[in-house]
């Protein structure tokens, strides 16, 4: 048997009140793609942070090759050939792509000057293999989240790595970019690099990995050979049961139109958007990143002013100037970016969850803490949020659990119209299906739901109707009977049946 590239032995890591890792051991072989799976909060990111020198383990040791290694800080880890692509974007927005990719190791000339030529040249070479549409001099802040993720990924290619850790790299990538990423991984693999790949997406796991290790509640649950196992077995190991993932077939009684957009436009972002959502209906918005779906949601939520068109709630035309007004009209939005838009990271779980209704809940002039805790506990159970208590600071939760807090926050508002933008980004399979069920259940209770997602299975699974968008315009609206994967892909790529392939895009 070959010498492992990396080996972890009995790693224990505790945080105040949390035993995040409880004696985890596993190894990664050179030239292997090793999947790390587990529910939200199972300890995957923590384990990787231990490997990357960000956290120090309380017990256990790490071996790189044969030698035990202490990673006192990220620099150490890097020096030992371990590259870490973070789950949460870790970029400096004001700097260029090139500077970000080589952050911490910009090529040097004499006297500490930056060797810009080498920097740009190397970066452009890397970007070429990644087939992205931006260049080395672009400022990272101007890139979409997907492209920023690609910048993160590009970091894997800068050094002579022994092992590369990808922590949910595909959470905000579209299919085309995923293909590129998988090529990159294949390439690294062929160079004998050991790869740890964390994801909640089964299809990816089965497509690219060689072995799968499973964590649960901070404990190591075992390793499976990908070729010899199946989704059910992995799921069973992760969450103790199997899941039924299929297309939506159920239909509810549809009620009156809850929300309607007529010819809604926002210059440069989207144009002439008309659709309606009825009570009891789930409408999915599907499209590529940059298709303008988020902007539509933001407009409906009063965060942008439309330049033309109108919004109607229960048949009445409304002008929405702020989220506060949108909320009072019964509209809720689960935003795209939980860190910057969804959560006050320094606040505790309860306060985050009840933030939009803290005023309504109050008894007399005071906050009703008891009622708030009750709401939190209800959604903690419903969404299976893993946290020691409501007092935990949200910033200390795992990424997936943070997302669940955001969802709980808006569900608890009992909205008439619920808009969810990428609701299951970073959510584990078990909870994902819980959330899907919840969305269906809400619809059955008469809520109108808009689901924006870049995951085709998700859209197909939850939607009654699907709106396909391309470049700021609605291409076509499908009922769940009409839709197939093929015609959906066609629609979001700008190909209309019977018409020429390209329509003029809205934004430059």
């Amino acid at each position, binding site marked *: 048997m070959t010498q492992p590239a990396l080996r972890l032995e009995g790693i224990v890591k505790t945080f105040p009140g949390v035993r995040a890792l409880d004696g985890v051991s596993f190894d990664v072989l050179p030239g292997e793609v090793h999947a790390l799976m587990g529910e939200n909060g199972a300890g995957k990111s923590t384990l990787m942070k231990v490997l990357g020198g960000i956290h120090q383990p309380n017990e256990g040791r790490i071996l790189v090759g044969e030698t035990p290694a202490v990673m006192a800080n990220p*620099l150490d880890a890097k020096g030992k050939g371990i590259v870490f692509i973070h789950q949460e974007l*870790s*970029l400096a927005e004001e700097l260029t792509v090139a500077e*970000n990719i080589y952050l*911490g190791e*910009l090529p040097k000339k004499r006297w500490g000057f930056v060797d810009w030529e080498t920097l740009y040249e190397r970066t452009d070479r890397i970007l070429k293999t990644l087939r992205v549409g931006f260049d080395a001099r672009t400022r990272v802040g101007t890139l979409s989240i997907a492209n920023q993720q690609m910048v993160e990924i590009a970091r894997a290619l800068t050094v002579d790595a022994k092992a590369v850790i990808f922590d949910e790299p595909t959470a905000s990538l579209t299919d085309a970019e995923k293909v590129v990423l998988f090529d990159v991984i294949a390439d690294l693999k062929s160079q004998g690099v050991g790869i740890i790949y964390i994801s909640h997406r089964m299809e990816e796991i089965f497509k690219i990995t060689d072995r799968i290790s499973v964590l649960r509640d901070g404990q190591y649950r075992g390793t499976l050979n990908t070729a010899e196992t199946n989704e059910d077995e992995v799921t069973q190991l992760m969450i103790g049961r199997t899941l039924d993932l299929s297309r939506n077939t159920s239909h509810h009684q549809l009620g009156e139109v809850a929300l309607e957009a007529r010819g809604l436009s926002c210059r440069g972002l989207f144009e002439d958007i008309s659709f309606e959502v009825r009570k009891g209906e789930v409408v999915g918005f599907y499209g590529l990143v940059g298709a303008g779906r988020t902007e539509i949601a933001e407009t409906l939520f009063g965060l942008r002013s439309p330049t033309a068109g109108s919004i109607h709630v229960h048949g009445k035309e409304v002008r929405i100037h702020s989220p506060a007004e949108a909320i009072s009209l019964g509209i809720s939005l689960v935003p795209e970016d939980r860190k910057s838009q969804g959560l006050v990271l320094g606040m505790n779980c309860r306060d985050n969850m009840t933030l939009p209704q803290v005023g309504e809940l109050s008894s007399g002039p005071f906050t009703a803490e008891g009622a708030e805790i009750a709401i939190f506990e209800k959604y903690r159970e419903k969404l299976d949020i893993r946290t020691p208590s409501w007092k935990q600071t949200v910033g200390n939760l795992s990424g997936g659990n943070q997302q669940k807090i955001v969802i709980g926050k808006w569900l608890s508002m009992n909205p008439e119209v619920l808009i969810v933008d990428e609701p299951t980004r970073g959510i584990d399979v078990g909870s994902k299906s819980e959330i899907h069920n919840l969305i269906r259940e809400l619809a059955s209770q008469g809520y109108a739901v808009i689901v924006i997602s870049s995951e085709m299975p998700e859209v197909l699974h939850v939607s009654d109707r699907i709106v396909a968008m391309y470049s700021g315009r609605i291409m076509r609206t499908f009922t769940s009977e009409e839709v197939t994967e093929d015609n959906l892909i066609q629609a979001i790529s700008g190909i209309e049946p019977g018409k020429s392939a390209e329509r003029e895009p809205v934004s430059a």
Partner: protein
Amino acid sequence: MKPGTLSTFLARGAIWGFIVLELIFFSIAGQFFSVSDNAFLDPANMLLLLKQSAPIGIIAMGMTIIMINGNIDLSVGATFALAAVVLLDSMTWPFMAAMGDWAIPLAWTFALLTGAVLGAINGLIVWKTGVDAFIVTLGSMLGFRGLVFMYNGEQPTSHLNWTLVDFAEAQFLGLHTATWFLLGVTAVIWVVMHRTIHGRNAYAIGDNREAAINAGIRVGPHMMRNFVLIGFLAALSAVVFYSESGSVNPNDGQLYELWVITAVVLGGTKLTGGSGSVISTLGGVIAIQLLRKGLGHIGADTETVNLVIGLILIAVLFLDRQLNVKGKEALRT
């Protein structure tokens, strides 16, 4: 031109536009209100303007880096004073006095070292204790001031050396010594910020400190170097200024930190760190000095000067933001 370049230019250029406005206003108002026959825009007056900008300006260059780093330094005024005390006092030490004019470069060195050491103290505390720079330097603003007083009680420290004064008052190619220092420091810091690894890391740390740590940048020593730099520059400012004036009151330099910070922010540097430019800072410094000079030129009284300077600061900020907002699609958050 790439999209956005124009708006960036406008945004960055706001301070220069404001300077032009000030010049126009004071030239015209000067016709009516000034008792002097000399025009405000007189070249000699403009050269004086640059020279008078130097004490604040040199420190502001250091503050720009500190603020790009996401830190702040409130102790610069006290550092300025202490360096001046060392500069002037050291020349009276017996062995220095014996050296004649050769004591001058040595005295300068002592003063600059003092500044660097004080900066290092701040930097070290920020680095090792993890206490926010605002608090650390708020404390040392007091502490360093205490050291100034300890040195010579409440008495001013003086040493008038005419060689030194003549050097400081000299003009080369029309520019005063102080102006040369100001422009030189600006150029050097510009190069550091845009061309060196240290400078680029400064932006990265201010922008996203966690990302910088994750990327293996040693944030602590980096910040410490910047504190040494600003201490050095505060001392340099003292060296330039007190070479000419030859005496320092123990409470000199008070409120300098606020003026310096104002200049830096007027120049568009974000208080949260991550972005900023030394050239714009120079603009901010000049804008403030111009305002003071212009108000003096048209004979505004103390009340008016206070009122106007305060409101103008706010107006510039407003203007700057209006220009900036147009560049972005407005998301109402």
